[in-house]
């Protein structure tokens, strides 16, 4: 039996194509994944991401706890509302999950974790929480709505509680504000401006309907994937997992090495590969026709197998195919990819591919 979000009936009423995603019945698209993609790049789209889980941490030593568990350092978050993207690592330096952590009032923090990893994340948090006297609370009473695109903030703000509107509109990127159980952060997974909102199930349905009436385009997981890929953002399970370190998947920038004596879980393993990680991630494009897909084999000019694509897809903004390849550290460009029995040249580029509606490659 698949789990359903509070918006399940709303998706069905719109004729969404529903698929099993990490045990949740979620919309992959409504009418057209391409139209949904373009709506986010040019106007406003909204995504039900209630399958992701908000987790609240409280207790006097919560910051110490998170500084031990997370590869980024919550000590950088001096003021309430500050947020950071980070990896949660195992002792071998592999990625248990990637998440955003936000400082709230007093000693409290909130994180939002992936659907497919939520159970193991929470078990991991619980295992370590006792030693710090930290309470870990999975907020199954809350849903999550991502509203993204150049018009997103303007569309959302009038529907917020009056006491939250001004603060929400003034939010800088990677900060959050809240009022009661309404929580809004200026974050996203699309490369566009916008908000992610965490709020009670009844309120999320009302907000969805209000935004739908205002012209926000409902978007499914298909558009979510093509948008994040164009934005150069990793997908857990594709681009990294427990066998891949952040240094091997383009997430070295999220590791806080300073202060040197912060002994976060996985640090010792990362230090060993810090100077020369065994693999690296490269952003690639395909000139011409064909679609890159995850798991396609990649080789170098001498026809040596050097790795494979961890993500790939058609980039609607660029009208050509893009992807991430995870290759041996020593391997050098040019690379080729095998698509349906043929080897085609890949162009190496610098991610992101698209930001704020504009092609960067």
């Amino acid at each position, binding site marked *: 039996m698949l789990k359903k979000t509070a918006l399940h009936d709303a998706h069905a009423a719109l004729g969404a194509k529903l698929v099993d995603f990490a045990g949740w019945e979620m919309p992959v698209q409504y009418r*057209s*994944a*391409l139209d949904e993609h373009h709506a986010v790049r040019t106007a406003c789209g909204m995504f039900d991401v209630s399958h992701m889980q908000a987790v609240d941490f409280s207790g006097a030593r919560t910051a110490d706890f998170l500084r031990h568990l997370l590869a980024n350092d919550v000590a950088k978050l001096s003021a309430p509302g500050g947020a950071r993207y980070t990896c949660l690592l195992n002792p071998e330096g592999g990625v248990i999950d990637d998440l955003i952590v936000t400082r709230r009032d007093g000693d409290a923090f909130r994180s939002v974790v992936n659907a497919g990893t939520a159970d193991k994340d929470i078990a991991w948090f619980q295992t370590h929480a006792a030693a710090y006297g930290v309470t870990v609370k999975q907020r199954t009473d809350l849903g999550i709505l991502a509203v993204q695109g150049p018009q997103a903030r303007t569309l959302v703000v009038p529907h917020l509680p009056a006491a939250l509107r001004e603060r929400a509109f003034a939010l800088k990127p990677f900060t959050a504000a809240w009022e009661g159980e309404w929580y809004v952060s200026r974050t996203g997974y699309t490369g566009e401006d916008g908000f992610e909102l965490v709020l009670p199930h009844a309120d999320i349905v009302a907000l969805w309907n209000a935004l739908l009436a205002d012209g926000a385009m409902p978007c499914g997981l*298909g558009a979510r994937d093509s948008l994040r890929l164009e934005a150069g953002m990793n997908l857990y399970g594709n681009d990294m997992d427990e066998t891949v370190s952040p240094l091997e998947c383009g997430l070295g920038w999220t590791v806080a090495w300073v202060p040197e004596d912060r002994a976060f879980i996985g640090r010792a393993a990362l230090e060993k590969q810090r100077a020369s990680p065994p693999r690296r991630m490269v952003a690639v494009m395909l000139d011409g*026709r064909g*679609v890159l897909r995850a798991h396609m084999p990649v080789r170098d000019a001498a026809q040596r197998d050097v790795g494979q694509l961890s993500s790939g*897809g*058609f980039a609607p903004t660029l009208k050509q195919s893009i992807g991430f390849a995870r290759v041996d550290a020593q391997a050098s460009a040019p690379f080729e990819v095998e698509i349906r029995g043929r080897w085609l040249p890949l162009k190496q580029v610098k991610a992101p591919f698209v930001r704020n509606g504009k092609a960067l490659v």
Partner: protein
Amino acid sequence: MSNVPADLKYVKSHEWVRKLADGTLVIGVTDHAQDALGDVVFVETPAAGRKLAAEESCAVVESVKAASDIYAPVAGTVLEANAALADKPELLNDAPYGEGWLWKMRADDIAAVDRLLDAAGYEAVLAAG
């Protein structure tokens, strides 16, 4: 429900065949197939003059979701591929039985077309899932 025009012949792998007055066959993929594929972004069609065996894989439709092989419904020779699909692959979604056709061909044995599924037969395939 997907559209299954009564005047066409079908293959269970979701291609349709239209027989023109001069015996030319027009091949495409069904409304059901385009809906299942999702937005089409590239189409690879067989070149004019190519000899096709029945059930030979001879075209590829790449959608945002996946690549799908398209099969020759009957044996014959390709007369022309739909050049418009190179710039407008979305025609395959918008008009699967019209402007989104894939290629035209001449059958080695025109009687082979009569042995393909009719609309009712194809609808039964869809109903069986």
